[in-house]
């Protein structure tokens, strides 16, 4: 029998705010244990939560970017359960009235090859709500210690509809969602730092069946590749169980990315009763149209919209946009270089091939790079005018990266400008080249246009690379026509 998997993802994204969700102490990662705490974070007797408005701004932004409906009132509920990483033993969350409803995430499937754009699809969202993160347990041999630095960090939970069917699709969803959140400045989404975490609800059913099968919740998918591997593993497990005559039980399973195996954490019967009720310490907050309009003005263009615009506006290929677009900063960098140079394709090539390589080798960020869009534009113009030749430009680029000097300064200093060659000298090199390659000459005469390229190499070699390729081409054609 053929099976179809049905997958829904619950993604937790830490919101990048200076302070925590319900108190003023700083939020952050990598600090000494229990230093990002205060009486509120530690839930000392008598403390009260006060909402961080910046976190609400951020989730409204996420909602508007993903096309959600924004609820007119932000209401808070308590989710009650005991666990040592939760200082109050309840989590302030949103239960029946999430701040964002509906919406969708546009995803791109892998193409047939790396340079081919894949199919696009829209994955519908159920809701997004805001809550507070918990602390971290460090288990030792004899005791477990708790670090509350993470506790109280604003956390969004983004819940998709069960609308995905393959591990690749889930992977594409997560990638797109992550890009969008980074685009919006909502989160850095560093999975290693736990800024983005993913749980998956997975079920299978025979192809053609419309009813949902029994779902299994897969937890601890804590890297983007574990998400793909874990889901693929779970789908295979469910099919194997079903095929061997077993039944899938509703449960929560823990995926171990290291071993590639999963094990049951708890069954449906062991599910918590969270005893949700409205938090009496927090007043509902009205989100009016003016508030939404203010946030809407801060929303960036979405990555895939940008890609479509790049195709239209700059006529650049997928191989370039697919590199540029996922990175908002790089896209902005490109646009500036494209505008300054007037040659989007050339600017794009320099950025995608050379700049990213140098930046990667030097382990610096784009912002730290000494090559600015103006440098790229200047270099493109020098090449276009024939002032520098391609090989020289490569050398100039590397020096530009280390010094930050403008390309014409470097070309001048290093004597890399193409010296205009004597017309007679060039013609002689061309004659020599044609004379030395009778086969190519015959082919060209026979109508094979591309055979002309065979004459160019020796000419360039004879000129020690200084000859202007445009002139070489013109001279060769003139000579060939006269033969």
């Amino acid at each position, binding site marked *: 029998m053929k099976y179809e998997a049905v997958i829904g993802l619950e993604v937790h994204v830490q919101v990048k705010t200076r302070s925590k969700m319900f108190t003023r102490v700083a939020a952050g990662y990598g600090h000494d244990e229990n230093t990002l705490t205060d*009486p509120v974070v*530690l*839930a*000392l*007797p*008598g*403390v*009260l*939560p*006060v*909402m961080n408005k910046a976190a609400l701004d951020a989730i409204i932004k996420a909602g508007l970017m993903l096309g959600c409906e924004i609820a007119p009132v932000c209401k808070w509920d*308590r989710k*009650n359960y*005991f666990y*040592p990483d939760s*200082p*109050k*033993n*309840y989590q302030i969350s949103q239960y029946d009235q999430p701040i964002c409803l509906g919406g969708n995430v546009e995803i791109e499937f892998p193409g047939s090859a790396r340079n081919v754009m894949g199919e696009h699809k829209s994955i519908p969202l159920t809701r997004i709500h805001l809550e507070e993160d918990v602390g971290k347990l460090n288990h030792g041999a004899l005791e*477990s210690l*708790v670090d509350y630095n993470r506790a109280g960090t604003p956390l969004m939970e983004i819940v998709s509809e069960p609308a995905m069917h393959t591990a690749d699709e889930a992977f594409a969803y997560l990638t797109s969602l992550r890009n969008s959140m980074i685009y919006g400045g909502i989160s850095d989404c560093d999975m290693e730092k736990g800024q983005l975490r993913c749980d998956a609800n997975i079920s299978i059913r025979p192809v053609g069946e419309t009813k949902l099968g029994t779902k299994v919740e897969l937890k601890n998918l804590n890297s983007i590749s574990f998400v793909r591997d874990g889901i693929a593993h779970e789908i295979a497990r469910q099919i194997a169980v079903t095929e061997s005559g077993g039944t899938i039980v509703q449960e929560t399973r823990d995926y171990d990315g290291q071993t590639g195996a999963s094990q049951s954490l708890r069954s449906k019967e062991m599910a918590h*009763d969270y*005893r*949700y*009720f409205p938090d*009496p*310490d*927090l*007043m509902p907050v009205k989100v009016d149209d003016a508030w939404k309009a203010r946030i809407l003005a801060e929303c960036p263009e979405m990555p895939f919209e940008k890609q479509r615009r790049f195709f239209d506006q700059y006529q650049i290929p997928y191989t370039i946009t697919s590199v540029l677009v996922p990175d908002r900063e790089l896209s902005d960098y490109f646009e500036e270089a494209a505008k300054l140079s007037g040659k989007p394709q050339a600017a794009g090539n320099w950025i995608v091939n050379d700049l990213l390589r140098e930046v990667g080798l030097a382990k610096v960020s784009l912002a730290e790079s000494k090559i600015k869009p103006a440098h790229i534009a200047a270099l493109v113009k020098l090449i276009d005018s024939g002032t520098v030749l391609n090989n020289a430009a490569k050398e100039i680029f590397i020096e530009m990266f280390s010094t930050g000097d403008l390309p014409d300064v470097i070309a001048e200093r290093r004597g890399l400008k193409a010296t205009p060659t004597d017309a007679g000298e060039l013609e002689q090199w061309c004659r020599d080249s044609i004379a030395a390659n009778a086969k190519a000459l015959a082919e060209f005469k026979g109508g094979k246009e591309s055979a002309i390229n065979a004459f160019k190499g020796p000419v360039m070699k004879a000129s020690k690379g200084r000859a202007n390729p445009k002139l070489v081409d013109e001279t060769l054609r003139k000579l060939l026509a006269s033969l």
Partner: protein
Amino acid sequence: MSSELFYKPVTELSSLLESKKISSVELTAAVVARTKAVDTKVKAFNSFNETDALSQARASDERRAAGQARGPLDGIPVGIKDVISVAGQPLTASSKMLANFVSPYDATVTKKLKNAGAICWGRLNLDEFAMGSSTENSAFHTTCNPYDLERVPGGSSGGSAAAVAAGEAIVTLGSDTGGSIRQPAALCNVVGFKPTYGLVSRYGLIAFASSLDQIGPFSRSVEDAAITLSAIAGHDPLDSTSFKTDLPDYRAELTKRKGPWRLGIPKEYFGQGLDPEVAAAVEKAINYYEKLGCEVKNVSLPHTEYGVGVYYIIATAECSSNLARYDGIRYGHRSKDAKDIVDLYFKSRAEGFGPEVKRRIILGTYVLSSGYYDAYYLRAQKVRTLIRQDFLNAYKEVDAILTPTSPTPAFKRGAKADPLAMYLCDIYTIGVNLAGLPGISVPCGFSQTGLPIGLQIIGQPFQEAELLAIAQTYEKGHDWASKKPNL
């Protein structure tokens, strides 16, 4: 000066301090000495720190000497219920759970008292986590009613009421969730004032039931209550439920508001269970207002009978969640022989909490459970709205409502072993919390056996100034407060 400094009201003491006839050190020393002399009998305090109090008093005297006195509370010893945080002092909630807990931060009211120059004096006993009406639920000891040591002072703020009555503090702070300020005030012959929900910050008050809790003062006079309220009221950015409103000078307002008022008498508050002596004393008070030209009208608060039921759903639901943090992990009592994390929770909480606290946590957990939420919690919230609406309807016709504070005078220790009988002590005070209204209890007489009786006056939301003026009008015509206990 008089050896009875400890019995004087703030109004008189602040004049004495201002005119330098006494020093704060002198006053504080008198209060400390009085406490040492009588608290072995009254047992109002869980703990006090004489050295700390006297050093605060010296600081006050130095301020005054430098011409920087901060107002009427500067140099006045103010006792604080052991459920309100004072940095560096124990914060026990009269529970084994927090027996060794010292708070590292000040509650907002504590900060405000300090800013007003008050001497933060001692930690006052209460029913564990403010759950009870007699202080018998304190894990440490039961406070005695200064007017009859065999009897309870009421609760949960029994220590705060008894301390003012016995001269162990000039003013005290308590908290009121279902009557925990007004009822002990009535039983101890002092003024007890619960402000409108949201007027005084709850930051630093150990939460029992967040939507009902409110801090307020105990004092010897209505004017002292007004002075203390001015010091502690006001919007607090650390409490989202605190209200942004302009604050009048409550003391100054007292002289500006003269009535006559329209006063409502709700028949539902004068029914079965009301002690005849209490009924008679309250009737007399009502007649007094009438004689002064006030219009007295019968009003109806038809949902009153549901008050106790609604209260014990909402309050227990909230407390079951609020008290979850006491788990033995970060602070507080931790069981020594737990095998694993679940065992640690069970044993620490089983050992740390007393029976009444456990009873309410269990009840609250039940009413919030999946499948019961709609039937209990949600429905209780709806009835709560109706109860509030009852009051607001009544206020279309009257300016304030008069009722007994407590159905009976102080009862003997152990007399109400049945929890339900104890819950009925708050039958006249609970509605005020459910509706979020201000309420005050003022002394209005004594039983034949010499037990104090209190008159409750219920005001309109945020109309504290009017309510205090109405209360003071009664107080001016009577001298119940001058009858001190024999200790």
